[in-house]
């Protein structure tokens, strides 16, 4: 009987460092992940190679069984399940538990182990977190112990629930370039006065929590604001802050309301040069 053809061998670790790293950068995403689980050395090698990946998104959907990670490469999308231990992954999703079992590190939470490993070995150009449900003890979510800085945080529950002010404070204390917020908040006395640190703010749902006094002075890096249901007086105040040269990078402000804003309220005290289109 003929023996099956054996895989050709290649002594990767005998190559110079720069060459090993170039080879790793040419691997497919999943191959690089598998390779990184082989030993401490291989894990460090993928890390050193600075393998660039388009994005990683953490999705906490309206049902915890649908929690997953989406990893986008130049030509592929990998959806990795992060569901609870006793729930098999939804059809079409890659099994995160199985991937985590390949990683030889102790951890009490497989989601944490897998996420930490991915963040260590790959160089993600963008990362974001999408929260679409009320998460009990939000500040204890596994992800925050690995990462507190994101390109984008979407807090956009699909079912309406009232956000606790400590949860909102926690979400806004994370670092993100973009915040997309859409939640209900019924504490009319609470005002958020801390700098947001973001460049793009989008707020739908409740807005009374946002203190607009000196808002642009507190957030000088703001480039784009899009807010629904902000009272006209506050819009007028924001326009005046903008006009006074706060947040010089700000190039877009959009406000939406059920009925049109009265022009004399929005532009009170602001001289507008009318331009006639020809």
């Amino acid at each position, binding site marked *: 009987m003929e023996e099956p053809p054996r895989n050709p061998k290649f002594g990767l670790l005998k190559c110079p460092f720069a060459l090993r790293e*170039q080879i790793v950068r040419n691997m497919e995403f999943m191959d690089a992940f598998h390779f990184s689980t*082989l*030993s401490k050395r291989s894990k460090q090698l993928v890390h050193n190679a600075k393998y660039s990946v388009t994005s990683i998104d953490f999705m906490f959907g309206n049902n915890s069984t649908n929690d997953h990670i989406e990893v986008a490469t130049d030509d592929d999308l990998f959806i990795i399940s992060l569901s609870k231990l006793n729930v098999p992954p939804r059809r079409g999703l890659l099994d995160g538990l199985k991937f985590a079992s390949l990683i030889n590190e102790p951890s009490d939470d497989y989601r944490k182990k897998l996420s930490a490993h991915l963040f260590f070995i790959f160089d993600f150009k963008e990362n974001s977190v999408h929260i679409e449900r009320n998460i009990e003890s939000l500040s204890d979510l596994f992800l925050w112990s690995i990462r507190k800085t994101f390109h984008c945080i979407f807090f956009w529950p699909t079912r309406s629930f009232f956000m606790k002010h400590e949860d909102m404070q926690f979400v806004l204390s994370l670092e993100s370039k973009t915040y997309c917020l859409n939640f209900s908040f019924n504490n009319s006395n609470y005002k958020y006065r801390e700098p947001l640190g973001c460049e793009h703010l989008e707020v739908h749902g409740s807005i009374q929590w946002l203190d607009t006094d000196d808002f642009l002075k507190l957030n000088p890096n703001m480039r784009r604001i899009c807010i629904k249901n902000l009272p006209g007086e506050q819009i007028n105040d924001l326009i005046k802050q903008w006009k006074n040269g706060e947040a010089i990078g700000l190039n877009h402000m959009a406000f939406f309301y059920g009925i049109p804003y009265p022009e004399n309220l929005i532009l009170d005290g602001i001289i507008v040069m009318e331009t006639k289109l020809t």
Partner: protein
Amino acid sequence: MSSTEQGTSSAAPAEPTTAPESAAAPEVPESFYYVHGKDKVVHKVSAGALQHSALIHGMISNLGYTEEQAKANPFPFENIDGDILQMVVDWCNQHKGKPTPPEDTNLPKQKEKLFDLVLAVNYLEIKELLTYCCKQVAMMVKGKSPEEIREIWMIPTDAEDEAAEKEAKKRAGKEAAGETAAAAGDAK
């Protein structure tokens, strides 16, 4: 040294056909250099083809060798096997003065030679060929399981790495002790 001249005939540049003869710039004769590998077989390669190699290009820039001087002073690459150098020379000739395509079908297909080829190409700093070679090495493990990757790329386990490290330390300690003893002996 055995000396066979190879790799030039197929790579001769095409004659210009559009410009009238009277208006054409005087043709500069192409210069050639000679390289040999571990087997001492000498390959004659044009300067144009050698431009692919940043290392050799740097060596020959402003060298101003005559044909005789170049022939008498082949560049020795004792760390490269003869057949590997032949592959590299062939590739350089095939791609002389041409933009390299995104997928190269002219790469040698023998996987067992790939390790030596990639090391040679890395040493000679042939950027485009190195890119293709690295891609080919990476493709060796495409879709393989972790344990298959371990086998193909000969990746030791953590335990094996630790054992090897211990052994290396032990050896280094012994060598240092030997050197100290020898130095003490010399001092006496």
